[in-house]
């Protein structure tokens, strides 16, 4: 356990643990992310999140599913350290020896968030450049990351020359170049057309299997959450809390056949049912 063990006020008030993955307390080994009693209240007084308890095991693919404004993106930003919780603790594990330019967290935003003035290669280089990692090793890693997302031939293109799906791939490569343990993805494929989204879903699953990353994937699509993840966490409307949790036990590797299977449809129905109150509550509020 490392950075930010005491980030925010460590007041653990009223920890609701009913929905939490029942793991022996203190058994932190193998945990990538651990949230305890985390809340986020904006300056405007709006309670956006929590209290939230969440354990994510190293190597797990978790989907955070919920209606817009349920604080799932906020949860991701808290884990990334881009914002501080109003209360509670956020712990993120570090693994292995840190080489220069390594970073424990990779973040993929809803928009590609690329620097328009830089080539694909320079965009992917950014995290290494900021860590002052240069030279042959850095170049090799950039090549590898571009290769992983299938953009080796587009290294010298500028973002405006790429399609939406390709821009998202660049964003993914930039997150992978630091070889992070944890990949945080904030509705990364929401703006893409369906065919492109399916393709990227499959590529992401392949990467996850090959690279053994922990992935926390925020989405508002039931289908996407079931297709991708091992565990779907359904969040309630603002302030976001864990409403239900599902283990998607379908075997890996999943492919297009899984998308049309009865098993998949069954999970989707269950998750949809669990999600419905979140929307009803939102409308009635």
């Amino acid at each position, binding site marked *: 356990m490392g950075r930010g063990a005491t980030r925010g006020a460590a007041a653990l008030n009223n920890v609701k643990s009913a929905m939490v993955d029942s793991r022996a307390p203190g058994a932190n080994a193998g945990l990538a992310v651990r949230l305890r009693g985390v809340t986020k209240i904006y300056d405007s007084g709006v309670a956006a999140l929590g209290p939230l308890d969440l354990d994510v095991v190293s190597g797990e693919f978790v989907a955070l599913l919920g209606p817009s404004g349920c604080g799932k993106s906020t949860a991701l930003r808290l884990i*990334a350290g*881009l914002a501080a919780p109003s209360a509670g603790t956020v712990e993120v594990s570090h693994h292995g020896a840190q080489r220069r330019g390594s970073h424990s*967290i990779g973040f993929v935003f809803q928009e590609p968030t690329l*620097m*328009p*003035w830089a080539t694909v290669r320079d965009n992917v280089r*950014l995290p290494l450049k*900021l860590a002052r990692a240069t030279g042959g090793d850095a170049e090799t890693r950039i090549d590898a990351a571009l290769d992983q997302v299938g953009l080796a031939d587009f290294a010298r293109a500028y973002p*405006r020359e790429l399609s939406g799906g390709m821009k998202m791939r660049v964003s993914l490569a930039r997150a992978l170049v630091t070889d992070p343990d944890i990949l945080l993805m904030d509705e990364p494929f929401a703006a893409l057309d369906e065919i492109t989204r399916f393709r990227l879903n499959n590529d992401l699953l392949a990467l996850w299997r090959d690279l053994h990353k922990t992935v926390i994937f925020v989405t508002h699509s039931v289908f996407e959450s079931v297709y991708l993840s091992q565990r779907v966490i359904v969040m309630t409307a603002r302030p976001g809390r864990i409403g239900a949790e599902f283990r998607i036990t379908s075997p890996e590797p999943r492919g297009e056949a899984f998308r049309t299977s009865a098993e998949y449809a069954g999970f989707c129905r269950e998750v949809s049912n669990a999600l419905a109150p979140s929307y009803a509550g939102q409308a009635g509020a």
Partner: protein
Amino acid sequence: MKSPHDLVRLIAPVVVLAAGLVLWEAIVRAYDIQPYVLPSPLLVLKTLVNDWGVLSQSLGITLLTTLEGFFAAAIGGIALALLFNQSKWLEYSLFPYAVILQVTPIIAIAPLLLIYLEQQTAVIVCAWIVAFFPVLSNTTLGLNSVDRNLAGLFQLYGASKLQTLLFLKLPAALPYILGGLRIAGGLSLIGAVVAEIAAGSAGAGSGLAFRIAESGYRLNIPRMFAALLLLSLAGIVIYGLLALVSHLLLRRWHESALGKES
């Protein structure tokens, strides 16, 4: 690329210019207007050639002043915007005065500057005062319009303040800065001219504006027109050069520099 439409766009203003000049020449001849009232275009051209020695020297002086004022404005404007970006306190303390300096007509400030400063310095300061504000406000706007998520990404990867400035804020602000510089180029010429006019006959300088004032006193109207023509051309060239620089720097990535079809 070269459609009939483009050709019309190119030719139309040239036709208007030619027609205007012919009309002008015709009126001067038809009504036998004296050169000290209104010189004909041909006479202006002749004067330009005959007086080239004097005029070119003046042109050089005005251009040099403009250039000095422009660089002072560019450096001052960008530096001030960077300072404001680093410290809100500094911005709150100084920005109102930058606005006051901008909204007070330069023609009213110039005589005062000429009292307290050496003439050459005063002229450059004039050019600076009118030209620095667009650079300052545009750069400020650019530095503040950085993508929020990109800023978050820099934060995530532990970028230092300097790295954020060099690799994120300045590139993001570049299109805005260049827009400010394009305005500043023309304005610094105006500033230089205003100061020269204000210095007037008392001045020891001999820039183009000084030539215009001097020729006016001597009723050398053709030379006034010739000097005016040169000033106008100088302004066009300055604008064109800055637009070219802007295009070359932005053409690979910024919307403003991309063709309509891409």
